[in-house]
Every structure is written in C-alpha cells, then in structure tokens.
C-alpha cells in the first residue's frame, strides 16, 4: 500500500512539474496564448524601427594626392632596371659597365594600388598615385651599374680601361643608368631607330649637344609596350680627349599616360544600436552621359561605424586609360571635365557576421574645380 502510494505520488509530482509551469505561464499573461508562447519582441522591434533612409551622404569627388591640377601626360615609373636591360638587349654595343653612384631605390610613382591588379608600391600598404608622394620608394631599385655604349662607326677604337671616372650627375630624382661614349647624337639616334624605337628631339628639328629643356635633356627615345613604354632621356655629358663626346641616358619603364586617382567621400550614419561594418564596395564607373565604362571603384578600407555613430568612408576610383581619354576627348570643356560619373556596383555591409550585399547606384558630377592641364 505504502509503495503504491509513493509511486503515485512521485508520478504525480513529475507531472506537476510540467503542468504547474504551463498553467502559471498562461495565468501570468491572462490566458493569452500568443503572449505566453511567443518571445517578447518589443525591444527587437524598437531596435529596427530606426530610419534606414539617408544612411549615406555622398560628398564631392576629389583627386587624391593634393593636386591643384592634373596633367594626363604625366607618366609613372615602373622600373629602372627593366629599361636598362632593354637598352642592352636592343642596342647592343656595350663596352662594359661603370658605377654611376646611383645605387638604390629612386622615387617614382606607382599606379593606383590594387585597382587594376597592380601591386602598388613596395613596402607600403596605402595607395600611391601619380605625383602623389615623391618620398615613397615605389619603383625597382637601381643597381648603380650603368652600361657603357659606343655607337661610333669605328668600333673598337676605344680600348679599355673603361671610363670609370665618368663624373656622376647629382641632384636629380631620376637616375642616369646608361652612358654613351665616343658617339654623337646622330649616331645615338641611328642606333635607336635601328632597334625600332622612336626618337625625338624636344624641339622639333633642333638637334644639338646643348641641353635646351628644363630637365636638360637633348633627346627622348620611346618604345611602346602595350599600356606601358620604355622611355630614355638623353643628356649631354661633355667632351673628353679619351672618351670623345659622351652622353648620359636615363632609361625607365613607365606607364603610357597618367590617370588621376580620385575619391568619392561618403558619410555613413548608423542609426542602430549595434555597429555596422562597411566591408566592401566595388563597381564600375560609367560616364553618366553615354554609359561608357571609364574606370572601376573600390572601398578605400573597411570601416566600422559604431552604434549610433557616423564615419567617413572613401570610394576610390581608378580610371582606365581609355576611360579617362573618353572624358578628355568628349567632355573636356576648357580645363574642366563637364560630365557626371555613375557608380554601378555593390556594397557589402556586415552586422556582426551577417553579410548584407546590395546594389549601389550613385551619380556624382565631375567637380569643375579640378582642372585638367594638357
């Protein structure tokens, strides 16, 4: 009898532990099943009841690098050594090598960082732009050894030792990385033309050993290589009884034309009670007038907007050569580009680890304050 009573009591207690909470829960909410069963979502609803419109505010497009004006005929140097090697392979007639004392990296300008798959500057993770920061070592270092050429008709007349005492050009950003001895400018021109290079005097029809440009060069030689080119600046060195006339050459491998790197500043407001990370933005930049793709855009860097806060983000635009030429050829009015750019891309936001990707369409006028000087 006692065992049975105990058994029933325990079973009853077990059942009560389930029944009582259910009854109590319903009683607390006045027998409202929805309020009893469903979680309280008031706090969550208030969390998302914020205005999501006008979260972004777009500023005026601006050129990076603190440039007052932009010259699309500027070039950026990719490598000194590559051009030097090209000279040796194309021109031949190398007597040997001398040390011109310009070993090490030289200041140059790298293409826009990672927009076109370019690695950007070595040793720095921030973008570098044409003429932007001459203190950065952005191009291949120069080994200091300069090939010595001789294009004299009577080759071999010159004998060793090589002119090790050739004076160095100092005070120039660009290294002089080749020397021509016992040759005049016409012989140099012939050598370049024979190798398929183009050869120009800065002043048409004026060939003279005397420097006559601000840089002091007397001639330029070019060789196209798709979007890049080899460019050799030739300077008159002097005359010596042993070396005859000698010339310095500054050879570099460079981008064909410079394009401006511009930024669209955007102010991002976060009305929510949790941080939002602007994780990525990328897209095509189109000419709003005729839909021609003129470049690509990307987010400068990931930015986390704190809860209820604001922050500025930059959308970096890298123009393609063809795209920028389109703007110059079709929309250049005076020194201003009279066109609007349309960003057609996607933006990815992160809330905690939830990624939200959506389309981004924005039209920005090309600011008239930016002058393009050709």
């Amino acid at each position, binding site marked *: 009898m*006692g065992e049975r009573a105990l058994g029933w009591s325990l079973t009853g207690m*077990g059942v009560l532990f389930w029944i009582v*909470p259910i009854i109590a829960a319903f009683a607390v909410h006045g027998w409202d099943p929805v309020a009893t069963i469903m979680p309280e979502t008031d706090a969550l609803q208030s969390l998302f009841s914020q205005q999501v419109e006008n979260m972004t505010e777009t500023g005026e497009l601006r050129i990076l690098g603190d440039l007052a004006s932009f010259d699309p005929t500027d070039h950026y140097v990719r490598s000194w050594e590559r051009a030097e090697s090209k000279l040796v392979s194309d021109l031949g007639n190398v007597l040997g090598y001398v040390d011109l004392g310009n070993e090490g990296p030289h200041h140059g300008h790298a293409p826009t960082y990672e927009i076109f798959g370019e690695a950007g500057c070595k040793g720095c993770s921030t973008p570098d732009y044409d003429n932007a920061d001459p203190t950065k070592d952005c191009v291949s270092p120069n080994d200091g050894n300069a090939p010595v050429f001789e294009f004299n008709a009577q080759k071999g007349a010159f004998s060793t030792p090589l002119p090790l005492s050739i004076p160095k050009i100092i005070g120039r950003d660009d290294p002089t990385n080749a020397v021509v001895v016992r040759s005049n400018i016409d012989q140099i021109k012939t050598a370049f033309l024979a190798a398929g290079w183009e050869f120009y005097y800065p002043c048409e029809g004026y060939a003279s050993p005397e420097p006559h440009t601000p840089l002091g060069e007397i001639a330029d030689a070019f060789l196209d290589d798709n979007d890049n080119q080899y460019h050799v600046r030739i300077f008159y060195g002097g005359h010596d009884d042993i070396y005859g006339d000698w010339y310095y050459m500054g050879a570099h491998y460079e981008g064909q034309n410079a394009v401006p790197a511009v930024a669209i500043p955007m102010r991002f407001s976060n009305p929510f009670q949790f941080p939002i990370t602007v994780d990525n933005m990328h897209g095509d930049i189109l000419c709003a007038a005729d839909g021609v793709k003129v470049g690509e855009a990307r987010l400068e860097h990931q930015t986390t907007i704190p809860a209820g806060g604001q922050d500025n983000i930059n959308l970096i635009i890298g123009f393609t050569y063809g795209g920028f030429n389109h703007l110059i050829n079709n929309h250049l009015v005076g020194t201003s580009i009279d066109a609007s750019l349309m960003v057609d891309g996607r933006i990815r936001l992160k809330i*905690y680890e*939830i990624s939200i990707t959506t389309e981004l369409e924005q039209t920005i006028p090309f600011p008239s304050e930016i002058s393009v000087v050709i």
Partner: protein
Amino acid sequence: MMSKFLKQLNWFGLATGIFMIGFGALAPAWWNVNLGGEAVSVEYSPFDISMTAFGVPMTSTLISFLCLGARVMITVAGGLMVLGSVLTQKWWSEKLVKFGSLKLLWMVVMLIIFAAVIPPVVEMFAGQVTTGADTRLNLPILAGSSTVTAQMDNVTLSAPITMTLTNAFFFAVIASALGVVARIYHRRLKPKKLMIRPKLLSLRPTEHKVMKVTPAEEKKIIARPVEAKKVGK
C-alpha cells in the same frame, strides 16, 4: 558496520544524483546555436534557454517557466536519487531511484530529437515564409557549421550558422548512462522479495506471504528447511 553500509550504497545512483543536483543548480548550456556570429545566439539546456538577437535578450514566458519547472524537478529528483542510493535497504529507496534515474536520459534524448528535427523543419518552412526570396539554409544537424543565404531582389544576405554541443551535454550523457546503470544495479542491493509457494506451506493459493530478507538471511533460508509461519486461518 561502516563497511556494510558502504557496500550497500548505490554508487552509480549517488553519482547520478549529484550530477542532477549540479545540473539543477548551475543550469549550464548543453547546446549553442549562433547565427551570424553573435547576431542571434541561442544557449539551450532543458533548464534554461537564453536567446539574444542583436544584443537584445528574447524570452518566452512559457519556455522560461517550463525550464524553471524542469530545473526544480531535476534538483528534487537528484536529491531523491541520492537519498534512495544511500538508504538502499529502505523499502522506498527503489522508488526514489527509479523516479530519478531516467530523467536526464529523457532530456538528452529530447535534445537530440529536437536538434535533429528542427533543421529540416526550419528548412521546409523557410521557403514558405520568405516568399519571393531564394533561401538556402543547409543547416547542420546537432553540431557543425554552414552558411545561410537568402536573396531577395537586389539584396543578398549571408550568415554563418554554428551549432556546438558543450561539455555540459557530454556530462549529461555520462550522467544519463550512470542513471541507467544505477537503476539496474539497484536491483542487486534492494531487499529481495522471497515468494514461498503456497503448496509447500499448505496455504491457500491466494495467501502469499512476502518476506523481506537480506542476502545473508536468504542464504540461511535456502540452507535450512523452510520455516514459515502460516498466516491467516
């Protein structure tokens, strides 16, 4: 005396009872589900279910009360289990051990069933709820991680989902196994019921005399001729 007492203890039941009291007191999470990192977080145990969404705690009164009931029940059952496992010679000890021994096991089984059933059910209903959206859940079952994606118009939503069984769950599995063992082991400890055949004692078939004897007494009874008192008329 002490040795006899220790021999009569149901150690498995004692351990199970202590585990149960511990679970009732501490209510550790058995199963964690995280969606989108910490965006949506669920910590589940039969004794406490806490859920936060974007830092906001979400509670259901019914679930909270049920968890509280389960918590009190497991604590009480654990206490009774300890009592039944210590005082094994009492006539009520078996009932107490039986009452508590399978409680955790059922809770473990329910969690496994729940965790196994929920992902397919959610996947089945997600498509219907999010009309117009291309939803891909690929939820893991019980433990694991995957990515939930949903695409609607121009918006793509992607979130990692992670399910983890905690150490507390594995302790609960161990405690459940101990509970089963304790239930079986307890049969060896309880005072055995000796059924004496009525023919042998010239009793009426309906008048069975149940005697409670210890194992030592049982040996004596078996060794000597039956001397049972006639009861009734």
